[in-house]
């Protein structure tokens, strides 16, 4: 029986791989999709379980996920095992690399936050002189954002902010409690823009339920799970890629898949790792460089509101817009929410006195988390560490990244601004701090395979196409030039859609 024929080989089934498959298959392009992990059945592979029936009573096996703070004992099976998937870093500069190796990837558990980037990001160098511009502008991506938001069922409220372009939203008309309303008023008085969250809605907002089913329904997609890709193979005569070597995750059986066009959407650092291990597409020398993410200051402020109530929202980046007005470049966004009960740690009590205080303060919690822009720097980079091999014999990454004064100054300013806002709103401030989680914990790692106009300083062109190898596309967060303070997934989806349409057109014309 003949192998299933296909034109495009896609590595990865998450936001970028999923959107690529969705776009291409609807245009009649036959695709084969490989993912390192298994598919799973939402009904059969999960069950209700009381916490006391877990082996570690909900604490999780100690030391199982040293770098994944997001994992808990219920969800442990979702996250990529750290022993099977090791990596390295200088102990002075810890990096938390968080991975999910399953059909759907990180879209199975993402926070759903869906923001558009603006020309403050796409043309950041024009704006403040630092770094580089993207080789495309907001106007180039807007039509794709328009189509992605309905696919991802994004809810939100329009604000008309140039730094946070409005989208095609399920309208959010939710009301806020009196405390949050006061907070919003105090922000407005200070010229600080706020809005509702913009989130993908639904019990599940994953490529698994939003993108792959429609792609499968076209008859143009075959998905192969448990395929751990080792390297990309190249035709020596033409210099074009012609396939990938992979192994079955469970048996380690060696396989090869051919490719007429190869799309890599394995997630930011996995895609770059694959290209580095394959020794391709790097005439510029920048593959692996310009690693950045968003820094997180979790619970920058924790406060008590005078009355229990609900509601929450988002502060959009507002600094350094008209001119440089701070001791740092760019800016931060804030997620804030209320209505919970503060963690017992914030009450200097124990025993019955603590329980009384928790009862008295039920529903009066308010907290805010800062998400700050990280400047892309050449020296923050990844490289192959030949001494660190994963469970399938693939060399892994050494990650070198650290935050700088720009990020520290921004965090301090965010803390002071939020503390002042809480106090002006009549909240009792329980704690404020400006300490960031380690780089990578945001799970918004970006860059290392960046786009650009010039093949001398970038790996990809404005179509996510490798300058050096025209039938190779890299469509995930690794392509970013600069990220801003907005969560990146919506932009990743839009770029993948745009790259796919270009790719299909090039194939139709016989260029690929």
């Amino acid at each position, binding site marked *: 029986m003949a192998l299933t024929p296909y034109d495009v080989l896609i590595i990865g089934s998450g936001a970028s791989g999923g959107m690529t498959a969705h776009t291409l298959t609807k245009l009649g392009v036959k695709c084969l999709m490989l993912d390192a992990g298994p598919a799973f059945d939402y009904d059969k592979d999960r069950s209700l379980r009381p916490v006391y029936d877990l082996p570690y009573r909900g604490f999780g096996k100690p030391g199982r996920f040293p770098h994944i703070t997001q994992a808990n004992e219920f969800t442990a099976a979702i996250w990529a095992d750290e022993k099977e998937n090791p990596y390295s870093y200088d102990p002075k500069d810890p990096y938390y690399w968080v991975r999910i190796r399953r059909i759907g990837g990180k879209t199975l558990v993402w926070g759903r936050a869906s923001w558009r980037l603006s020309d403050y990001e796409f043309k950041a160098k024009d704006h403040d002189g630092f770094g580089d511009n993207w080789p495309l502008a907001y106007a180039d991506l807007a039509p794709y954002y328009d189509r992605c938001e309905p696919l991802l069922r994004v809810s939100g409220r329009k604000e008309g902010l140039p730094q946070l372009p409005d989208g095609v939203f399920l309208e959010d008309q939710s009301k806020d409690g009196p405390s949050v309303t006061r907070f919003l008023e105090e922000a407005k008085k200070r010229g600080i823009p706020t809005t509702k969250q913009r989130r993908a809605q639904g019990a599940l907002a994953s490529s698994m339920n939003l993108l792959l089913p429609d792609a499968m329904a076209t008859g143009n997609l075959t998905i192969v799970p448990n395929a751990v890709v080792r390297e990309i193979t190249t035709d020596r005569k033409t210099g074009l890629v012609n396939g990938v070597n992979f192994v079955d995750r469970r048996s380690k059986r060696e396989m090869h898949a051919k490719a007429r066009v190869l799309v890599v959407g394995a997630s930011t650092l996995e895609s770059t790792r694959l290209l580095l291990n394959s020794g391709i597409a790097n005439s510029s020398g920048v593959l692996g460089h310009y690693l950045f993410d968003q820094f997180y200051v979790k619970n920058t402020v924790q406060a008590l509101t005078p009355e229990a109530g609900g509601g929450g929202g988002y502060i959009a980046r507002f600094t350094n817009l008209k001119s440089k007005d701070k001791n740092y470049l760019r800016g931060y966004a804030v997620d804030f929410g209320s209505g919970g009960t503060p963690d017992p*740690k914030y009450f*200097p009590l124990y025993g019955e006195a603590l329980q009384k205080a928790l009862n008295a303060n039920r529903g009066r919690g308010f907290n805010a988390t800062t998400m700050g822009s990280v400047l892309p720097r050449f020296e923050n980079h990844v490289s192959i560490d030949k001494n660190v091999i994963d469970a399938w014999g693939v060399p892994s990454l050494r990650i070198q990244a650290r935050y700088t004064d720009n990020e520290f100054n921004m965090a301090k300013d965010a803390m002071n601004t939020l503390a002042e806002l809480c106090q002006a709103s009549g909240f009792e401030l329980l704690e404020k701090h400006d300490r960031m989680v380690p780089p990578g914990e945001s799970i918004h790692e970006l860059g290392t395979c960046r786009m650009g106009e010039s093949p001398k300083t970038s790996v990809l062109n404005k179509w996510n196409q490798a300058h050096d190898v025209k039938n190779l596309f890299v469509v995930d967060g690794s392509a970013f030039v600069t990220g801003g303070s907005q969560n990146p997934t919506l932009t990743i989806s839009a770029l993948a859609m745009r790259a796919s349409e270009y790719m299909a057109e090039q194939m139709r014309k016989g260029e690929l």
Partner: protein
Amino acid sequence: MLALPAAPALLAQEMPKIEVGVPDAGAETVAHFFSAPQLAALRRLSDLLLPAMGETPGALEARAPEFLDFLIGESPADRKQLYRAGLDALNAGARRKYGKAFAELDAAQADAVLAPLHERWTYDAPKDPLAAFLREAKADVMAATVNSREWVQVVSQRSRTASGTGIYWHPIE
């Protein structure tokens, strides 16, 4: 003539589901990580941190100290050291102030030794081993209690939201 049970061959092919319990339903944890004085201090501390209140079980009823003996015994070296040093410091503080082990103090005396629990939480952990231990133990004892069978079975009858049940993802092959 005897009536035979219906279709014994069919009965043999049924796949019944049997309700099984958890280890804590019928047995006690054997504590073997902490020394006897450390475990005694941990039991007293746990009872103070989360005593039984009315119908609601406390840390001792939930066997939280014994569970933590198991958990800490499996934990990385720095966590083990934090707990051992902290429990030793509780006993040392009790002896220095009152000439007795921590487990033998009354509530007022214990409260004096537990003074760090009355300090405000700060992002950076305190350097003092007792203070650093107490802030972790406060959270761990509460979690070990609230996640116990004893707690969940009592509290879930009162409140639908505090059910202690979650969606567990099965391990992949």
